[in-house]
């Protein structure tokens, strides 16, 4: 009755609004993790989903929707960074952290941790930064990161290994409370 769907990813059978419900949190969190003002991160989130909707017919379900969506998210982020080089960055995260579900004090502490971690990420080489953010902020698998960045999976693994090594050294020097 229904055509054979062995090579087709199950995400291809889902309507756009449901994919949005599934991935909004992941994308919004990823961009808020990487971008230092919540306003910009939320604007970028809107842009990502608008672009995804406009190009939804191009998603062929050859892989998970998340990899396809994060390729858009990554491109949107890169465009944003390129356009912002001349501007001074602001710390909007303390403000956003206060708005979270925890108490004000805990929220501020969390905000500081995010800022500290982002500062360390910014000091990494761009390739390292992308891999770490996509791995731990977007929770993508190596194969998906490779697809997003247009690199081989082994190259991504190598970048990831080196990035973590650098990050650990710097984090220890900074006195981060890696618990």
């Amino acid at each position, binding site marked *: 009755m229904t055509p054979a769907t062995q090579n087709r990813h199950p995400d291809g059978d*889902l309507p*756009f609004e449901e994919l949005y419900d599934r991935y909004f949190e992941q994308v*919004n969190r990823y961009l*808020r993790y990487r971008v230092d003002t919540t306003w910009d991160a939320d604007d970028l989130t809107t842009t990502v989903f608008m672009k995804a909707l406009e190009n939804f017919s191009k998603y062929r379900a050859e892989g998970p929707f998340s990899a396809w969506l994060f390729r858009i998210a990554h491109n949107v982020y890169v465009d944003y960074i390129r356009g912002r080089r001349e501007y001074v960055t602001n710390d909007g995260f303390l403000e*956003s952290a206060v708005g979270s579900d925890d108490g004000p004090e805990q929220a501020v502490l969390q905000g500081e941790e995010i800022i500290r971690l982002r500062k360390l990420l910014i000091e990494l080489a761009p390739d390292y930064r992308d891999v770490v953010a996509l791995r731990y902020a977007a929770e993508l698998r190596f194969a998906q990161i490779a697809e997003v960045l247009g690199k081989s999976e082994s190259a991504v693994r190598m970048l*990831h290994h080196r990035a973590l090594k650098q990050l650990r050294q710097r984090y*220890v020097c900074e006195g981060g409370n890696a618990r």
Partner: protein
Amino acid sequence: MTEERYDNLENKVLPIDNFLKAKEDANEISQLLIHMRQVRQAVPVNRRLQVELRKKLLERQRELMNQGPAGNSLPEVSKAKNHLMYRWRPRLPVIVGALAVIMVVFFLGYGQFAKGQDHLAVVGTPQELTRFWTEDVPLQPAISPDGSKIVVVRGGGLVLLSNTGTQLASLEPPAGATFRSPAWSPNGNQVSFVLSHQGSEEIKQIAAEELTASGKINRANSEPQTLGQRTMASQDSIALNETKADDQQKDIHYSNLVYSPDGQNLAYVVNKLGEPTEIWVRSSDGQEKKITNGDAPTWSPNGKFLVVQRPGRAKIYDLWLVNVASGDAEILGPGENPVWGKSGYLAFCTEAIQERVLTFQPNGEPQYKVRQQMAEMRSTYLGKDGSHMLKKLTAGEGWLTNSHLLVAPENRISGIEINWLRQQEMSGSFEPKTLVLNEIFKCEGQVFGPEDQWLLFARRDGDTVALLKLNVEKK
């Protein structure tokens, strides 16, 4: 990678001091990764944006649909066509306007024709009516046609509830017997159920008045604990009309009774030991007929079709549309526990295995994972006989594409996972492992209320099972 089932684990909480010491000895990179994940979880999500953007996207989606595919792919224009265009240019706005009106009328008309209603939308969140202790028997509620009463089976007896969850009455079976699978007739006069007694089973009927009156009789009783309770001491003490009695046939079990919308036929499942389950239909003149193999039948609004579930690939069920007269069956797609409402909507459950990574190895690969089967409830429009859906499926449209989410799976990290993590760290073994947990939110007992304005379903939650009411509206 090894797997451990929760059932095989000792569910003990380990001393926190040992756990903390184990953490101190752990690899620094692992700690960093854990910390990074903690930081990630602390990043707040803009829920208001989530809601607002969803609306905006739906509007944009409608605009794109109205524009149609022609807007994106204009063919190359030849010189001759250019010439024609030049000739028609003065009248172009009029032509384009007329075409746009025709397109809008066509899409609106076709939308109504093809779908009847767009989809079934959830109104608010599920409201818990009441809660029972979990039993092996699923909580299969039956709703009276006017929607004012609900019958469920608990402890082998029938329990009558109001539509707000208040217990009105209960009917206990004879000693050593149990009741199961109640079904309320569409005219509201009778409740059918399975009576299981000493290995043999029968389908019985009771006048609805008897069931509802059982509570009224006992309300006069001053004993609070027996309020609303009545024991069926023998089969003769209550006017039971036996519709199927075959005491000699042991190892045959009946379940999932469901009346056709006109009340003339009763479908039920026959389960013979070691054989596939069968769907039978008993007509009002007493004739019984096997329709097909399968389980969990539900009638089409016109009473000519059934949707049933059958085992599919990889331990999941598929839904099939079955012609009651001929027994011909056509596959719809994955799903289980279907319920077909009078207005043509089908609610059903789908299951997927979800894996969550709890901790990572130093190289970034997952170390400890949890695998769990999650169920969600969806709805789709089948119409009066399912023919539109079959056309869509034949045209290559996906089954799930044509459905909408009603109830999402719950995603909670339990104490079981935390204890398991502690045990792993205490054991000193850091090889990758996967914890396989029991299924959560096992779908059971969904049934539509009158006019399909609400849906009743049960949700298991540890040792208890909740009866929930979900308001829905057609959009």
